[in-house]
């Protein structure tokens, strides 16, 4: 018989949180008497195990009684597992030889029957004791961290993150799919609630990012592949051919002036305006170099034209330029790929795409933007008529189980902003149709009050439909917004000239593929999932990958900036430690037992399992393994084992929970 473990059991009262329901004294005594065979040499109960006195008690026992394993029956391991591990470490016991049993969240707080809760607590402890016997001392895995960071997405969140890291003195690669950084914020006219000019506050940041010595800007580029693991990622980036030599181009603008081919700009101008086949998306674009849109360029289609080349003063046009594939080494990655606007066509009864004067929010942003296609004139689709009555519909595609169940967070404030701009610039009557007005940030509620004072109409009711079918006098030639004013219970038909649909935010269409590429997860909605919704909002479950801005969920500019900075701060902290300790919960494959059947090869979403063709065996890369244990469960030969959650640990825990191998005493009445 191998050496018998010496186990200490510690039952916490948690004040009355546990002791009020579970008879902790009885549980403790029971463990001491009945679990001797399993190795329990001491069992105590104490008022607050997590207090420093409680911890000292454990540490003292470890030393005096030579404990080799510790079981603490207290709260959820998510709360205090680390506390008790540290306590063990303090007494020179490997922290992974401690097991926490939750008799608070799983017993005292959820049960009212004291006897049953006490009996259940005993079983849970028996399970913990049976399990802890099979714990092994573990050491965290240490890997060095590459100081460079990749930021994917050049919107405001990505720009902020890149600047923070670059300013701290570390290299950053900022990858953006479009020809310029700036993101959605560059499209806006004003920002709420201060009505700052969006371009005026964004442009300096773009310029700083574009000229920062520590930032390598990779626009018109996309990440194709991510290999490696935290501290040591190797990222493949495709830098698409701009057809413009960046060394020679001065951004003078003659080329796009001379280009004869006009194209409807569905990206930056939201379809409201045009650009040329060679273009920069907007005048303040960073970098300043244009790109040739090869799908629309006459030269690429017909082989003639070359107007741009002819007029370029620096010979920068390069029709033969090819995509470049770059391999970048980075230690950490921030995903800030932003959002997409909900496609308002999906709500057929709102008429977008069918009724000319129904606009989306992004269209309206361009319409009201002084640099936009109408020079900031708010006019109907005919390009000249100023609307007299405007209806703004909130929650388009949001808070609706038929589309997206979540609240898009920015639409209320955006709608108020629109109402203000319409009112200010056209003097039109404005109706806001809303379900609830949500203005929870600084200065937002005040802005709402300002709108109320401006005389904007607020009708509480989700719009049922928008129609041009006239029924009543006064409706001719108008769009009729049909809605219940829920505050009076009246069904209204409000005739308006223009409708603005405050469309919600949606994850990027390719969010799922992006998540897969970077080995992180996305919610059913498609937003990328943070490690913890409250306490770890910018990290992800994959070490070294962070998220910032709307890619994580709908949010406004200040929140995106804050997340960008937060992600940067997290990464800077890691970089400065120079190496990272990884949780030692890992799978490993016994090379003798592995037959190379390759069942496991396809199971790891983190690509941690590699197959050696030569030896016909599979192997786990411990740095990539995230410890989920799926391969352990799947291995038909039982050749894969997982530390921290081994078969022996769990099978023994089952035996313990079922009170097998425990001598039966008299039943508690």
């Amino acid at each position, binding site marked *: 018989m191998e050496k018998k473990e010496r186990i200490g059991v510690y039952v916490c009262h948690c004040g009355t949180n546990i002791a009020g329901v579970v008879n902790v004294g009885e549980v403790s005594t029971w463990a001491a008497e009945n679990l001797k065979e399993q190795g329990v040499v001491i069992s105590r109960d104490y008022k607050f195990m997590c207090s420093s006195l409680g911890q000292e008690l454990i540490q003292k026992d470890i030393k005096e009684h030579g404990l080799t394993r510790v079981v603490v029956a207290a709260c*959820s*391991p*998510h709360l205090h597992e680390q506390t008790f591990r540290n306590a063990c470490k303090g007494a020179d016991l490997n922290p992974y030889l401690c097991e926490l049993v*939750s008799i*608070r*969240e*799983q*017993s005292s*707080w*959820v*049960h*009212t*029957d004291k006897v*049953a*809760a006490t*009996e*259940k607590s005993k*079983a*849970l402890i028996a*399970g913990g004791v049976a399990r802890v016997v099979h714990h092994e001392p573990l050491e965290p895995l240490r890997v060095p961290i590459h100081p460079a960071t990749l930021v994917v997405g050049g919107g405001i969140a990505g720009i902020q993150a890149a600047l923070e890291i670059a300013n701290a003195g570390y290299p950053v690669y900022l990858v953006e799919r479009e020809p310029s950084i700036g993101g959605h914020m560059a499209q806006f006219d004003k920002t709420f609630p201060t009505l700052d000019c969006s371009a005026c506050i964004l442009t300096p940041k773009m310029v700083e990012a574009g000229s920062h010595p520590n930032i390598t800007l990779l626009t018109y580029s996309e990440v194709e592949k991510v290999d490696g693991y935290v501290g040591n990622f190797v990222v493949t980036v495709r830098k698409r051919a701009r057809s413009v030599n960046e060394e020679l181009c001065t951004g003078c603008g003659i080329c796009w002036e001379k280009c004869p081919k006009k194209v409807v700009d569905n990206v930056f101008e939201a379809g409201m305006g045009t650009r040329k086949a060679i273009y920069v998306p907007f005048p303040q674009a960073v970098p300043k170099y244009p790109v040739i849109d090869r799908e629309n360029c006459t030269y690429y289609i017909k082989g003639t034209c070359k107007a741009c080349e002819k007029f370029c003063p620096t010979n920068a046009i390069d029709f033969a330029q090819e995509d470049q594939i770059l391999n970048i080494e980075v230690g950490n990655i921030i995903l800030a790929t932003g959002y997409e606007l909900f496609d308002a066509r999906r709500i057929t009864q709102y008429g977008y795409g069918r009724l000319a004067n129904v606009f989306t929010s992004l269209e309206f942003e361009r319409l009201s933007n002084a640099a936009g296609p109408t020079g900031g004139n708010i006019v109907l689709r005919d390009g000249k008529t100023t609307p007299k009555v405007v209806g703004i519909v909130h929650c388009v595609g949001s808070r609706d189980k038929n589309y997206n169940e979540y609240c898009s967070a920015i639409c209320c404030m955006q709608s108020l902003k629109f109402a203000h701009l319409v009112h200010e610039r056209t003097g039109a009557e404005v109706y806001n149709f809303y379900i609830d007005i949500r203005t929870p940030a600084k200065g937002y509620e005040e802005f709402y009050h300002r709108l109320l004072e401006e005389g904007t109409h607020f009708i509480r009711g989700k719009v049922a439909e928008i129609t041009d079918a006239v029924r009543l006098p006064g409706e001719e030639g108008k769009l009729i917004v049909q809605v219940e004013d829920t505050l009076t219970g009246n069904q209204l038909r409000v005739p308006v000239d223009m409708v603005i649909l405050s469309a919600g935010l949606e994850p990027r269409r390719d969010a799922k593929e992006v*998540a*897969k590429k970077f*080995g*992180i*997860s*996305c*919610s*059913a909605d498609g937003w990328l*999932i943070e490690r913890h*919704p409250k306490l770890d909002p910018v990290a992800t*479950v994959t070490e070294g990958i962070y998220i910032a801005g709307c890619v994580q969920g709908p949010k406004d500019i200040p929140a995106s900036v804050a997340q960008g900075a937060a992600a940067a701060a997290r990464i800077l902290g890691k970089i400065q430690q120079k190496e990272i300790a990884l949780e030692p*919960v890992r799978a490993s494959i016994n090379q003798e037992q592995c037959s190379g059947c390759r069942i496991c090869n396809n*199971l790891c*979403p*983190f690509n941690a399992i590699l197959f050696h063709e030569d030896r016909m065996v599979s192997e786990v890369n411990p740095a990539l393994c*995230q*410890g*989920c*244990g*799926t391969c*352990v*469960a*799947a291995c038909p030969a039982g050749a894969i084992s*997982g530390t*921290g*959650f081994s*078969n022996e640990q*769990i*099978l023994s*825990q*089952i*035996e313990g*929970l*079922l*009170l*097998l*191998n425990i*001598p*039966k005493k008299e*039943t508690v009445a």
Partner: protein
Amino acid sequence: MTDTPETQPFDKAQGESFEPVIIGFTCNWCSYRAADMAGTARMKYAPNVRLIRLMCSGRLDPTFVLKAFAGGADAVLISGCHPGDCHYINQNYKMLRRFHLLKRVLQQMGIEPERLKLLWASAAEGAIFAEEINKFVEQVRPLGPLNWKPGNGAHVEAPVHEEVPA
């Protein structure tokens, strides 16, 4: 030689007061946190389920379920993150596939399908978790005790020796 265990796994009063013993498996990220949440919110549910925390429902080895049944559990609960929400991208699907196969095998073994339950619960779904546990307990209760003859498998259980009459 007898198969009657010296220790009954639990006090199983027969008849109306039968309280099924249920072993539950949760993943660390969603369903265990749902249980935590039920606790934090002081939601009440039946005390019949004893949970085991795995890192991921993908870790669920069918052996664990068989072990629980063989060891005297009356039912087994398996829970994990909602499909599409797995902390490890998609490992819960792998559990789901095994679950369907396991269910078929258990049925052939004569174990009523009602004794095995799959529950998706997110970290926010404490209420659902509690409610589903109650439902499950009520679903198992009418089936009565399973009382599987304990046996830990050929290679594990130490056999009992008896005098052989000559």
